[in-house]
């Protein structure tokens, strides 16, 4: 057996960089750290206005649907599982498993987006909560809309990677590309974990 064939890839150490971390991964972590601050400000804004709601603000508890949001949360958690399995699959060079995992992640991402569109439509047309008619609407739609935009970007990225996997150019050596995409997707999930608690669940206490 040749030395190349017997070699195995170490996905947690890159000797070609001074940090031992692949540059793409380092870039993604730096971006996610900055995105933390972005979402931190949006969540703070929402919570601040919830501290002192102006007169006429509709009670959020009557507007929100905890059942739908819990379902969305569950779906996003499961999509994170499928994304982790996709990264695991490409690190083992298993393209078939990668494709199925990516497809399932995209499917779950689309369900989440569908739930969000349904929720927004319900708020606007049934509950008469729009982005301009109250501060609750402004902060809520800005925060959850920005998160939804992140999910949409993730779904597009995942779809691109799925199509790219059929070209035959995606191999185990390129697993860092899938891993970076996975980091982004998991970040979208952890942001939702915070939003679910801070924006939705706190209203029910």
């Amino acid at each position, binding site marked *: 057996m040749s030395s190349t064939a017997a070699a195995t890839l*170490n996905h947690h150490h890159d000797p070609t960089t001074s940090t031992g971390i692949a540059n793409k991964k380092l870039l993604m972590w730096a971006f996610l750290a900055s995105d933390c601050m972005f979402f931190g400000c949006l969540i703070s804004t929402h919570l601040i206005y919830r501290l002192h709601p102006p007169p006429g603000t509709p009670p959020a508890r009557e507007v929100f649907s905890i059942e739908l949001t819990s379902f969305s949360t569950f779906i996003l958690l499961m999509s*994170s599982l499928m994304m982790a399995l996709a990264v695991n699959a490409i690190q083992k060079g298993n393209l078939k498993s990668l494709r199925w995992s990516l497809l399932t992640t995209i499917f779950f991402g689309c369900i989440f987006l569908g739930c969000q569109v349904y929720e927004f439509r319900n708020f606007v047309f049934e509950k008469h909560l729009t982005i301009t008619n109250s501060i609750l609407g402004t902060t809520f739609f800005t925060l959850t809309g920005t998160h939804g935009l992140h999910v949409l970007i993730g779904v597009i990225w995942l779809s691109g990677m799925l199509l790219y996997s059929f070209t035959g150019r995606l191999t185990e050596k390129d697993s860092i590309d899938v891993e970076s995409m996975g980091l982004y997707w998991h970040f979208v*999930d952890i942001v939702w974990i915070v939003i679910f608690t801070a924006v939705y669940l706190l209203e029910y206490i």
Partner: protein
Amino acid sequence: MSAIAPAAPAHAHPLEQSKFWIFVQIAMLLAVITGLELVTVYLPFMKWLLVSALVILSTVKFMFVIFYFMHLRWDKAFCTILFFIGLILAGGTMWALLKLFGAEASKPLPVTALEPPAAVMRVA
């Protein structure tokens, strides 16, 4: 691009093979914690206790995702440090803003208090 490390047989990495089950178990745990959060909001306890419970539960979920799904547990410590710099800055900003605007003096004035007195209006 991932680096090629010295040769090692496949059975030398039991962790790589067991990661699948680790991920599945963690996903199930996360789903259970989400269920617990839902139950928590309907419990007849004091508000501070419920808020603390929710914060702890969501922090546990957050940590499981970043350390297992995002591989921080197996990656270089620098990745953890880099991400936590952003997280601490964001958390600090949130804490400061909530403290500032949560203060009694930050309460918005009622509309009547903002209207000028009638005498001042007559002079003007």
